[in-house]
């Protein structure tokens, strides 16, 4: 599966636009912050490579609630439709995560 980094955002106009539309206009963001969407019971993108200090925001765009859980690392509340969850990664490492309601949904954040 394709992984995303900042350069991809530069070259992939579609993704960049999608990300831009989702950013609240008034909120200043660190320029390396990233989004993961839940669509059709899938974390998209399923894997992200990020730098320490990056905040990742998950948005549930399904009509069914989901969660974002990385055992012992972070755990969102249940996200209903359009709810968001953010986590700032302050330590390097691989963060496997899943939806505790639909455990076949898994994702990975690689922090370097």
């Amino acid at each position, binding site marked *: 599966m394709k992984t995303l980094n900042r350069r991809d955002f530069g070259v992939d106009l579609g993704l960049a636009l999608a990300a831009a539309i989702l950013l609240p206009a008034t909120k200043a963001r660190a320029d390396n912050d990233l989004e993961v969407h839940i669509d059709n019971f899938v974390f998209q993108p399923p894997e992200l490579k990020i730098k320490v200090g990056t905040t990742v925001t998950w948005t549930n765009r399904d009509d069914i609630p989901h969660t974002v859980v990385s055992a012992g690392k972070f755990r969102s509340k249940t996200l209903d439709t359009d709810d968001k969850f953010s986590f700032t990664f302050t330590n390097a490492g691989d963060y496997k995560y899943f939806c505790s*309601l639909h455990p076949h949904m898994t994702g990975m954040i690689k922090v370097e």
Partner: protein
Amino acid sequence: MSGHDHGDDGVSRRKVLECMTWAGTGVLWTITGGVPRSLGIIDSAQAATAAAPGMTFLQISDSHVGFDKPANPNALGTLEEAVNKINAMPAKPSFMIHTGDITHLSKAAEFDNAERIISQTKLDVHYVPGEHDFIDEEVKLYRERYGRGTKGHGWYSFDAGGVHFIGLVNVVDLKAGGLGNLGAEQLAWLEDDLRGKSKSMPVVLFAHIPLWTVYPEWGWGTEDGGRALELVKGFGSVTVLNGHIHQVMQKVEGNVTFHTARSTAFPQPAPGAAPSPGPMKVEDAKLRSMLGVASVNFKQNEQRLAIIDTPLQG
């Protein structure tokens, strides 16, 4: 006792009689099928005539009270329609089981609303939780309401009409990448619960997520469901009921009949027929043909469980 295995799924009359002798009760509850079209009983007409009328219970599932998205903006309303349908049945079922996802988001008001509507059936209802009923942070609303007298996260068993019913919970402690989960503690309890039970006693297992693997790509199955089925293998008649997948699906495997019920809230696609198992939007006119309830009829000396799925409409 355990050697008294019915083996193939057809229980011959001679075998039935053998079992009767062995059981020493004179009455053997094989599972069952109360639909007159079942001709399997002609052979044992004598026994059938002597038999008491069948016992009927009802299954409803996946009410998702609180769901208000386009697939069905009024899940409470269609639950009420299902309840009206139940109340209009010519013969009152003995009781009802609800195979989970009573609510959509485990909110107190959703549980209240569900209770208000379901209680209008005036039937005893035996619940098991779905994953949507265990969403609240402390996971206590379901348990406070329905968990009395249950073990662990809410499992229990009871006998009715000569049948042993076992409510299982497979929606907690789910592991990344996995399916539904029963867990070691519950399996140990199940083994204990079945110990000493006559193998001729029909067993009904019910749980939210299918205990059999329907479609692992969508998480439609239970990781350790096979271990539960192993424990009931020696029984002459086993019925496994579940919800979760919002559509009728059934199969017979040896002495085990698997059956999933419709939702009263919204339909879900057939396995692999859509990008995800999410709510399926259908034409308004078609919605009620894809929602409904199931009634299950046990009758002595018949070979199959009769399950009648009744859509809300059509």
